[in-house]
């Protein structure tokens, strides 16, 4: 196989797929990037058997791709990505000889890299007549950013390290929880499949993979096609395909966690509440649970924190509206700050049911984005 291409174009492709290259593995071929050349295009693939990214580059004037001889090869990602990034010239030529030796030329530099037979590279999952949904890239990014942080990092309960994707009638809902806080966000979606069966389906995607997906999503209205089988999911955005394995298991019923009613509601500007809690957290930052207290008193909201060794802080926050009983509740400041950042700017509603009950943070206008947080009990 032999081709020529502009250096920024191939550097981009390699950078995109390299996120799926296996780091710790016993199979050397998984630490490589598969390059496949057809008469019209160059395809790069990385796949660690959990996460796979494939990018197809069609020859055009911008990328200057010139295909001289078709073929395929697997090149070691650790070296290939850095070599490509640091090449001196504007064009790169890659030439593979019979013994899987790649010659990479650019400017006056010439590299020789040992490759692996492409036949050893594992096949990506096949999506035949899979159920599909389309979402604008920006919206999908927002859905992930509003929820992914709440997924668990601990492998004790594998399903909780995932993000639940649920497809309801013309809508998609993402939910993540680690048992201490829960984030859920719903958005309308278009049915792009032939059959309407995708409604009321759900899938648990690994949180880590979804965060990698976030890195390659463009920040625009470009449509992303989501496809699901029973074991894998595929996200297609432009010429990039992102494959991930699903987490096997049953996601706990999180709907019953969300309190159906509330005894106290406070509406407050998100930035004011966020900044006050952020300041109060300074006193609590060395304590394990980052405990900050919130007191609803008459028409005021008081954020406070104290530590026997460090000192204490108290700050009054102006509220837009308050209804219900007064109360004092304590919580982990880190969880509340992350939840507030996941909500849209503007007025947020804090809905409480007493000092020992989980409380809800949501946008004052809509319940599309809901953040549930468990309290720290004041004993």
């Amino acid at each position, binding site marked *: 196989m032999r081709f020529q291409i502009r250096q920024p174009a191939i550097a981009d492709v390699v950078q995109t797929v390299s996120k799926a290259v296996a780091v710790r593995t016993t199979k050397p071929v998984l630490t490589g990037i598969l390059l496949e050349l057809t008469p019209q295009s160059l395809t790069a693939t990385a796949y660690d058997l959990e996460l796979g990214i494939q990018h197809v580059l069609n020859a055009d004037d911008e990328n200057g791709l010139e295909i001289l001889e078709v073929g395929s090869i697997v090149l070691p990602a650790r070296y290939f990505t850095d070599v490509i990034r640091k090449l001196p010239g504007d064009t790169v030529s890659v030439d593979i000889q019979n013994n899987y030796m790649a010659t990479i030329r650019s400017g006056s530099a010439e590299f020789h890299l040992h490759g692996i037979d492409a036949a050893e590279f594992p096949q990506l999952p096949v999506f035949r007549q899979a159920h599909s949904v389309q979402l604008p890239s920006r919206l999908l990014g927002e859905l992930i950013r509003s929820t992914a942080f709440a997924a668990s990092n601990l492998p004790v309960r594998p399903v909780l390290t995932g993000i639940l994707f649920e497809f309801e009638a013309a809508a998609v809902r993402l939910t993540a929880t680690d048992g201490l806080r829960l984030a859920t966000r719903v958005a309308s979606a278009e049915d792009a499949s032939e059959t309407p069966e995708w409604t009321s389906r759900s899938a648990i995607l690994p949180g880590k993979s979804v965060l990698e997906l976030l890195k390659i999503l463009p920040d625009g209205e470009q449509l992303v096609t989501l496809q699901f089988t029973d074991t894998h999911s595929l996200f297609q955005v432009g010429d990039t395909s992102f494959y991930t394995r699903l987490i096997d298991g049953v996601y706990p019923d999180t709907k019953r966690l969300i309190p159906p009613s509330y005894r106290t509601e406070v509406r407050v500007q998100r930035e004011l509440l966020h900044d006050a809690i952020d300041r109060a957290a300074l006193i609590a930052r060395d304590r394990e649970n980052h405990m900050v207290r919130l007191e609803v008193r008459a028409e005021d909201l008081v954020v406070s924190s104290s530590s026997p060794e460090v000192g204490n802080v108290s700050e009054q926050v102006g509220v837009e509206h308050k209804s219900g009983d007064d109360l004092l509740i304590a919580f982990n400041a880190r969880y509340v700050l992350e939840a507030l950042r996941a909500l849209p700017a503007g007025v947020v509603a804090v809905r409480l049911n007493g000092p020992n009950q989980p409380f809800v943070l949501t946008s004052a206008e809509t319940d599309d984005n809901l953040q549930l947080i*468990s309290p720290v009990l004041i004993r």
Partner: protein
Amino acid sequence: MDKQSLFVQVANLEERIGELYVELGALKQKIVELLEENQRLLRENEFLSESLKAGGNPDIGVGMGNLKRIYDEGFHICSMRYGSLRTEGECLFCLSFINR
């Protein structure tokens, strides 16, 4: 004492401290397991003696009260992680079960 032997002695000490550290970690894990097992056995014992006294099924109120007590003592009562030690904070799943 020459420098070489001093260094060797310090290196040996370092190794022993490292081993002690690992041993301490294992011991801590053992304590957690024992605490969990002890709690489970206490519960089982209590349940058995109660059902023996009552001569039938204990009513739901008592069962719920017991679960609440176990939770307050620092153990999960939710189906997700029943019986394991709660180390992080209040569990949403357990709270929703208690409040049902």
